[in-house]
């Protein structure tokens, strides 16, 4: 156990993985000399050299495409999209090339690459630098999808991603880089399995990435109001193991799925549907989704904050769900 930050845990995971596996290379904009837009790859070019830490031109499609080719020929590249919002530029290489190669080629070749990126709000980065686009990747068979919420997962999920035989989209959250915490000696759960971050009996809150922290803050507030909320951190959206979520809902009878993404067509919608299908007999109330507003993220700080769920909103909705106490805004 050691106390560090989410950013440093990611950096250490890259260092440890690259030290152990000479086939791992980094490829992306500003990953080398600059050290990464958010400092995650700081100093790695000095440690591993220019042939393994490759500063790429601003060519997102070819960055991902080159990573696909390197992976098909035996390397284990980590391609970086500085912001997940740039995925649109690279989506053919992600969704048609990286995701489908193993299947189209009948299993002859896999694409063992990691696509690191970061998303989310919190820095007034506006509509093209603040999105939570995990649904794009969740909707594409062939991709794995990991979204660490904690410092320990920042390290362990990235190490695990770098052992996977298939492409992993690894989405960090720009609002978590400074988060402090401890890196455990082992992962909190196996790859693809969720972790129960807080136990509770009245309500199950399902979240991932930064919304785990909002959900935990909501659960703390709810405890003072006589509501016992269980908080489950999914950690990975593919593989997606909802068994522990179904077991939790079987006990609590109520579920809320919380996402920072625009709600319509979101990962939360898929997860809520699955809870509804599998837990119908146990549910006391409809499965609620709490998500980002269906709008482009505005730059004004007050508007940006209002565009995504807060702990207060989650707690209000939970009290309404459990105790039928309508919040003041209702």
């Amino acid at each position, binding site marked *: 156990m050691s106390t560090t930050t989410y950013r440093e845990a990611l950096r250490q995971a890259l260092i440890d993985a690259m030290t152990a596996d000479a086939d791992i290379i980094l490829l992306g904009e500003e990953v080398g000399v600059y050290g990464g837009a958010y400092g995650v790859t700081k100093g790695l070019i000095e440690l591993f050299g220019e042939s393994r830490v490759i500063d790429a*031109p601003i060519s997102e499609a070819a960055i991902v*495409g080159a990573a696909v080719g390197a992976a098909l020929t035996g390397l284990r590249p980590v391609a970086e999209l500085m912001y997940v919002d740039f995925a649109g530029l690279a989506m053919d290489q992600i969704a048609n090339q990286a995701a489908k190669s193993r299947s189209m*080629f009948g299993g002859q070749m896999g694409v063992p690459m990691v696509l690191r990126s970061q998303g989310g709000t919190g820095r007034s980065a506006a509509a093209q630098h603040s999105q939570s686009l995990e649904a794009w990747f969740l909707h594409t068979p062939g991709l794995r999808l990991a979204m660490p919420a904690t410092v320990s997962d920042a390290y362990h999920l990235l190490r695990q991603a770098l052992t996977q035989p*298939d492409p992993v989209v690894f989405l960090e959250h720009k609002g978590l880089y400074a988060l402090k915490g401890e890196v455990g000696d082992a992962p909190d759960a196996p790859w693809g399995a969720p972790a129960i971050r807080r136990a509770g009996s009245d309500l199950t809150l399902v979240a991932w990435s930064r919304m785990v922290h909002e959900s935990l803050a909501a659960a703390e507030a709810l405890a003072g109001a006589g509501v016992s909320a269980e908080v489950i951190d999914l950690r990975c959206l593919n593989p997606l193991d909802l068994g522990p979520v179904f077991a939790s809902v079987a006990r609590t009878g109520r579920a809320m799925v919380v996402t920072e993404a625009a709600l319509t067509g979101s990962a939360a919608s898929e997860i809520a549907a699955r809870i509804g299908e599998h837990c119908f007999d146990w549910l006391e109330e409809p499965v609620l989704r709490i998500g980002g507003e269906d709008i482009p993220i505005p730059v004004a700080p007050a508007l940006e904050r209002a565009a995504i769920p807060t702990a207060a909103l989650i707690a209000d909705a939970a009290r309404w769900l459990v105790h039928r106490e309508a919040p003041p805004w209702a």
Partner: protein
Amino acid sequence: MSNTAPLARYRTMRRIRSFEERVGELFLKGESAGSMLHLSIGEEGVVGVTDAMRPGDSFTTHHRGHGVFLARGADPARMMAEIAGKATGYCGGKGGSMHIADRQLGHLGANAIVGGGIPHVVGAGITARNRGLDHVSVAFFGDGAMSQGILYEAMNMAALWRLPVVFCCINNQYGMGTRVDRSAGRVAFAERARAFGLAGAWVDGADVEAVHRMAADLLAGARAGQPAFLELSVYRFYGHARMDKSPYRTPEEEAEGRRRDPLATARGALLAAGIATEAELDRIDAEAGAEMDAALAAAIAAPAPAPEAMFRDVYAPGTPQPQPQADRLRAILAEGSAA
């Protein structure tokens, strides 16, 4: 002209032509998987490029890549089976004509997205460089890809990092139904590549020996760290795909274009140089025809993939797999709600 290599190239080109003719038959017999079959008849001069490649070299192709793959050593029976969507095909019947690949032969994949496979050779170049391997990776694509941004991103990276990569544009004059001078303001593609810092050259793709001389130079340069671009000028003898009767071009133009026949050109050159007789070339033609007849028959006779095969290879074995719909519905409905 030394004797054996040009004759071997003629044989390879004839095998490609015969193969593609059998692909046409496969479709007419209703045995192909779909009609998205893009024949490379008229483009056989690409053998001059594939002959300059070595074992260990890798490549990607576009949707019109049967000839390139066959020339790199593919088994025509397994190719034809893949095009027919059969279990014995290179990809077990999951890829088909447009996604055929073979790891052993360095085929990193045909691609149905115009330009989609081009950046993969940049990655293969990084692999070769980092592992100290003397391997070149060649991207084969058509003139349509000259309008895709990914090509320019990839050429810039290859030039910037001096990777052992060759970009090979098989310009058959048409992107589907649009002639190249209706999609480019200036149709001097090698100039574009040179502007990026690549060695850039144009060659008459109907003259396989000229192609080979040019490609051998460019691949040697690429192996030494000077990435290159080569445009083969050819004519697409038939329509874009099997259903396309090319109403957008005149019979006169087609007749003129088909005079630029790589097979006829090579045959004339071999006879003129006294390397082979008419009878010897006829025998090569007949052998190629018989080989491809057998490939066609084998593909038709081969079994279709088992239905459950569709769930395999989406992810690697031993990792979580897609849940078949029937299993999902059973879990929800058969036993009521299940935790």
